[in-house]
């Protein structure tokens, strides 16, 4: 495995969910006859990005933008509708359960809700050992598991005695530590973290973020970090992708994105985020209205219904994610027609 090869490469990933229900639910009788609807949620609509070894890539966006679906599709909880998911160059998009098993030693997931993501009837040491036991084949390897679990618990700041307890005996922050230990158990190169600190109080959130950063430094982990919180993302990510309605509208290295956001949605998101600093005089862009339904996507640009700059071209032509230099990519017609960039 060369260092040049990204640990994760996603190409043109699409995830559509058929929510039609049974035939009778879908049957629509109108004046002109009978027709069968096929309602589809367009959760993810062709996104591409890659993560290098040891890199932290964050996906941000508001609820319903598809960021969690991307995470779950890459973890192959969902079967993608279309596209490639390459782990160390190996396309796993169409793998079945058995073929995924060895891949799961290289990729693990941390979930948002530390209450729902741990089995309440398992002891902590069994929870942490589960992925590891799935990957061990010989009796000898099995023998090494208990010692490994102890080391893992220590690594995430829990003690050996904690291993014998049940999840309900822990606070939210401690439970998230257990979830991290479980993900780490197989020594994966990539961890997919879906809103790992959103359910935690701010002082506990800082503890978990610090732990994740320490682990990255120690083991050279790469993270795909899903979050809605821009201040958290700014703290942890090397690269940031902004999603809207299932599209990636902008990706850039962290400092570039925060200092020179190009897409109107990114700019709106940054100006809407509250801050403990003295209030800025003007909000650069304030959005009206809400995100349109993913059942029927707007024609052209996904953001045009709320964009203060939108003009005719935006309704006709879907902008493509184009390189604008400095590692920044933007999907917006304003890049080609900068004169229109005024409210």
């Amino acid at each position: 495995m060369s260092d040049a090869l990204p640990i994760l490469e996603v190409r043109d990933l699409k995830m559509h969910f058929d929510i039609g229900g049974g035939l009778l639910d879908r049957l629509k009788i109108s004046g002109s006859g009978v027709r069968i609807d096929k309602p589809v949620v367009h959760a993810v609509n062709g996104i591409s990005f890659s993560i290098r070894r040891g890199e932290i890539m964050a996906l941000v966006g508001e609820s319903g933008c598809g960021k969690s679906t991307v995470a779950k599709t890459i973890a192959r909880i969902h079967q993608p509708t279309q596209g490639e998911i390459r782990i160390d160059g190996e396309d796993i998009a169409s793998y079945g359960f058995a073929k995924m098993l060895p891949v799961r030693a290289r990729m693990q997931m941390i979930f948002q809700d530390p209450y729902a993501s741990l089995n309440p009837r398992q002891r902590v040491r069994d929870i942490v050992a589960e992925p590891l036991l799935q990957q061990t084949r010989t009796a000898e390897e099995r023998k090494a598991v208990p010692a490994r679990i102890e080391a893992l618990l220590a690594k995430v700041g829990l003690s050996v005695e904690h291993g014998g307890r049940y999840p309900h005996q822990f606070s939210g922050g401690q439970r998230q530590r257990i979830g991290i230990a479980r993900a780490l158990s197989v020594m994966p190169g990539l961890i997919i973290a879906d809103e790992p600190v959103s359910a935690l109080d701010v002082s506990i959130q800082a503890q978990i973020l610090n732990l994740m950063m320490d682990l990255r430094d120690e083991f050279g982990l790469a993270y795909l970090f899903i979050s809605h919180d821009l201040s958290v993302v700014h703290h942890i990510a090397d690269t940031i992708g902004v999603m809207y309605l299932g599209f990636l509208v902008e990706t850039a290295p962290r400092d570039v994105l925060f200092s020179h956001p190009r897409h109107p949605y990114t700019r709106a998101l940054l100006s809407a985020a509250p801050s403990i600093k003295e209030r800025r005089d003007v909000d650069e862009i304030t959005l009206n209205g809400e995100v349109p339904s993913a059942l029927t996507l707007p024609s052209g640009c996904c953001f045009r219904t709320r964009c203060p700059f939108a003009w005719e071209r935006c309704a006709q032509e879907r902008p493509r994610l184009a390189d604008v230099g400095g590692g920044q990519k933007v999907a917006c017609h304003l890049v080609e027609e900068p004169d229109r960039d005024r409210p």
Partner: protein
Amino acid sequence: MTVQTQHALLAVRDLRTYFHTFSGTVKAVNGVSFDIGEGEIMGLVGESGGGKSVVGFSILGLIDSPGQIMGGQILLNGEDLVTAGEDRLRQIRGREISMVFQDPMTSLNPLHTVGQQMDEVLRLHSDLDAAARRKACVEMLESVGISRAADRLGAYPHQFSGGMRQRVVIAIAMLAKPRLIIADEPTTALDVTIQSQILKLMRQQIAARGASMILITHDLAVVSEMADHITVLYCGNVVERGRTRDLIETPAHPYTRGLIDSIPDPANRHPRLKQIPGTVPDIRNLPKGCNFRDRCPRAQALCAVEEPQLRPQNASQWAACHYPLQPGDLA
């Protein structure tokens, strides 16, 4: 909005709300005092279990068994709500004090139209006839930014999005022109671009009506953009209170400082976040002395013995700490 007033609209004095459970007495609110003047917005912040929501419910007399207000006074224009009867509280709720809850999905009745739920407030709290009530509802919906308001009166809550529902909840809270609005995490369930719309709306509505507000939230950033004053709760006690900018820029209590430092700061990025070590203690079994001492970098022997009292630190700030931070201190 820095209206300076001599007269406190609401004065809470040494409020104690306890919950008697099988595993012990939970002192959720344990001696909380604060004042809110007319037209002021006060932020009540703290982490989960700090007691901030219980303060809100206590003011409205919404504490049910096993909870009980054990002591203290809640003075609304001098009238004590702790000793007021249920009939009097029913008159006050919705008319003098109204509440906006966190979750706009569950705080509206799914079986009644928005119009019915708005009309109910005016039927209870005004002498208007049906036509005048309807007119008032339409005007209110329009003022919170809902278009085609007259048509939307007939819609059910599920026909609105989350942000729109929270606008409806705010409209209902404002209908009877209350003097005080208690907003309990009003934007926590909303996305950031919708949150900024709702916060702006609340600021406008409060200013236009000269009402006061208690903004209960865990989010210091939201509070610092909205509030005139901030009160910080920890384990049911006020640990610090003060004018917003002073408290954010020069916090005196190590807990306030810890909360502020835990927020990643885009302008000043460090490889590691400052964290408050440990977790909130079990509120049924609080340590002797200062509740925060186990997590406090400044704790000394005295902190284990004597509970610190709220003392003035400067012209605008009060803190309950034996070793408060001075403006120049680093940690």
